[in-house]
């Protein structure tokens, strides 16, 4: 089953992992997760996430469906925060559940790699009084491209 959430609230890891463990008719034998956090190492005080309501949920559903088509999964979860957040807070959480570890580990990497390039989110960083939009990275494009074959 596919669970897609875009929210301003903080992400409850235990609730999301438990949900991924128990979703589906027979539950899971393995759950792999990825959590992305706001980094503070370059002086960022606030990170604001803008998105394209409607198109965001459609894009995330397409990413999740891509994983379900490639691997035998009992659950796929994508939770993405929007709005203002601060260093140390969770921005994104993805989980893939399967009978054995290989499928969940690979699907988890696929989900976050594709989400980075395929979903309409934009990050704006604030340092003191200076605000700047984060530039897209070629490394993210390369990471997503390895799943196209």
């Amino acid at each position, binding site marked *: 089953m596919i669970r897609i959430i875009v929210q301003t609230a903080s992400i409850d890891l235990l609730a999301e992992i438990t949900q991924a463990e128990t979703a589906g008719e027979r539950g899971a034998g393995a759950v792999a997760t990825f959590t*992305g956090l706001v980094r503070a190492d370059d002086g960022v005080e606030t990170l604001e*996430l*803008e*998105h*394209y309501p*409607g*198109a965001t949920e*459609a*894009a995330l559903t397409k990413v999740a469906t891509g994983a379900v088509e490639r691997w035998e999964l009992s659950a796929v979860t994508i939770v*993405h925060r929007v709005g203002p957040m601060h260093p140390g807070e969770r*921005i*994104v959480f993805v989980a893939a559940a399967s009978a054995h570890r290989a499928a969940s580990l690979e699907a988890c990497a696929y989900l*976050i790699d594709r*989400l*980075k*390039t*395929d*979903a*309409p*989110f*934009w*990050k*704006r960083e604030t340092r003191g009084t200076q605000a700047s*939009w*984060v*530039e*897209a990275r070629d490394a*993210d494009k390369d990471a997503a491209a390895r799943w196209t074959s």
Partner: protein
Amino acid sequence: MTVTMVYFAWVRERIGTGEERVDPPASVTTIAELVDWLALSSPGHAAAFADPARLRAALDQAFVPIDTPIAGAREIALFPPVTGG
């Protein structure tokens, strides 16, 4: 043809609005041509669309290449490359 334009991130900031209704002439047939036409409408539009290579587009909420035809579109979005995750 009237179409709703939506803008995000620095495209939205430079234009000064996140959404507007526009009525391009029949000679405008693709999103790229729409961008060129919109760039003439204000200094903010001109600044937002100064470098079309930095723009990405969605037509009726699905990502599309910038040379996609606009015939029948209800909503066209213009924005920078995405940076989520």
